[in-house]
């Protein structure tokens, strides 16, 4: 046997991933943006928490990008809201709640829905029927209505909000996972794994779940935007996040009244929702290519 460094591939995988990210400029910018957002979410409330709630009635609905901005201070570069609070500061501070909720809801829905979908697809029989009908019920019931009912009955606490949003997003994952599993389990390599002695759990865990996962990640990034919007709708109805807490969705909802006179109130938080979703999408499609061995060469340049 030859002496080869057994861990060679693992050691250079980290810098390699970065260089692959650099190859895709869109994904790189998206990653930077998300990094910035994460920083905002982590440190924003601590840095700008006071500024975000400081009212300045002289600057009510003050327009953005006024030159020179010296007079108002740079926090007003995106304008002021209906109570004269700086929109930039509010966006930064609101990123924490917004991202925290979405970041809790989406993985929760993905894990629960994915697990149920795997079960439904691989076990089949009455288990599958039961899970699918559950998904049908969740899907046929208007998700916003369900959320309203649940949040009225229970308290509109953040934990409840997360749970109910996760529940309403679950059916997509259940159905997608199940249909993917049904296709993958018929593939020959699953038979081959069984013929070489792998049990059911091992096959689901090692051979089926990893193949479904990339699809689920793609859906999850799209879901991120949906959850932000759903959260804003609930906040708008007064049963989501309660003021003075802020989220982007809540800012959009509050700014809606002033669209005729001060479009920037709703526009900038809305833009943030869009940019975040877009970045996640770009990054996820990059991730999908990187994790697919047959596609990875697209990102590997000759001078690599």
């Amino acid at each position, binding site marked *: 046997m030859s002496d080869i460094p*057994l861990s060679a591939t693992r050691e250079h995988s980290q810098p390699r991933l970065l260089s692959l990210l650099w190859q895709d400029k869109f994904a790189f910018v998206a990653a930077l943006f998300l990094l910035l957002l994460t920083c905002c979410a982590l440190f924003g409330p601590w840095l700008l928490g006071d500024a975000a709630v400081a009212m300045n009635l002289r600057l009510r609905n003050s327009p953005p990008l006024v030159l020179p901005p010296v007079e108002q201070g740079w926090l007003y570069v995106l304008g002021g809201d209906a109570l004269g609070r700086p929109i930039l500061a509010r966006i930064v501070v609101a990123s924490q709640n917004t991202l925290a909720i979405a970041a809790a809801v989406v993985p929760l829905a993905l894990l629960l829905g994915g697990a149920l979908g795997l079960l439904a697809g691989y076990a089949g029989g009455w288990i599958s029927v039961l899970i699918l009908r559950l998904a049908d019920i969740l899907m046929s019931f208007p998700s916003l209505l369900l959320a309203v009912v649940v949040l009225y009955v229970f308290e509109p606490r953040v934990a409840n909000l997360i749970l109910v949003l996760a529940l309403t997003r679950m059916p997509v994952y259940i159905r997608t996972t199940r249909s993917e599993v049904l296709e993958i389990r018929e593939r*020959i390599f699953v*038979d*081959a*794994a*069984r013929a*070489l*002695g*792998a049990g059911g759990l091992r096959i689901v865990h090692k051979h089926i779940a990893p193949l479904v996962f990339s699809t689920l990640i793609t859906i999850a990034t799209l879901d991120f935007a949906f959850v932000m919007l759903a959260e804003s709708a609930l906040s708008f109805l007064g049963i989501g996040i309660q003021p003075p807490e802020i989220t982007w969705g809540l800012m959009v909802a509050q700014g809606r009244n002033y669209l005729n006179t001060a479009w920037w109130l709703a526009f900038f938080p809305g833009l943030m929702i869009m940019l975040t979703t877009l970045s996640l999408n770009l990054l996820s499609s990059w991730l999908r290519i990187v994790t697919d*061995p047959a596609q990875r060469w697209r990102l590997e340049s000759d001078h690599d």
Partner: protein
Amino acid sequence: MTEALLEVQDLYVEFRSGGGTVRAVNGVSFSLARGETLAVLGESGSGKSVTAAAIMDIIDSPPGFIRGGRILYAGRDLLTLPRRARRRINGVDIGMVFQDALIALNPVYSVGWQISEVLRAHQRASRRMARAAAIHLLERVGIAAAANRVDDYPHQFSGGQRQRVMIAMALALKPAILIADEPTTALDVTVQAQIMDLLSELQNETAMGLLLITHDLGVVADAADRVAVMYAGRVVEAAPVRQIFQHPAHPYTLGLLHSLPRSDRKGDKLNPIRGAPPDLARIPPGCPFHPRCDFALERCRSELPVLRDSGPEHRVACHRSEEILHVSR
């Protein structure tokens, strides 16, 4: 005769669907001894692959059901064993190589991972040891620079190399029996020969029994010790390979041999067996081959011929086997 390592007795497999019941295997019996190569020869739909799937317990149920028979491995009936016990036999005692390694290997894992996965499924092997074992196995099946290729993915290998990887996986735990389901069908002829050479070389080394499922008479002639010819889910003739090629006693075997293109008769038309294999949901009464048989009598339409001895180690299921033996002599 040496004692059988694997013995299939009177196996019945059927697939139930909305359109009716497809009787894929109808009373197949054969045995395989240590160190022996048994070729199961038949057209598509003759039930040969389903028989292999039944041995490996990879028939999806529903729609597939094993309706009867026994599969004895080392004296134990696999069909009565619980699932878990069969999983411990699969891979460890009986390995399997599939027809098309491209779809039989998982596309998202490196080949090294997949080989070590077989080891880890059965033994507590550390990653490091499993990886070293995988490299060793790849070397053994003739992958050049195995240490560099162990992290490559299936699509980065050529067809022949992929089949070698598949063989390495199947042999990872040194099974006593290897089932090869059309191992060379997806390969071109030169690579076919290499793969068959590799299989017989490995077989000589480990004295494993090789169950070779194929429709390729050339492969059979090269590699097999004995042949079982299957038609419509039954074994219609079983004999040592020389006997099959020189003195076939079943008209179907005779037809198969006649349908081979021969270089010494250039310009002749091919002699295919007329008609098509029967619909397994509607197998004709009597001998299932009678609609295509040139020798069929009235008796063949009504009475199913049983497999009986027609010589030493030669068994055949045909009412007119003596006459056919005479013709083929």
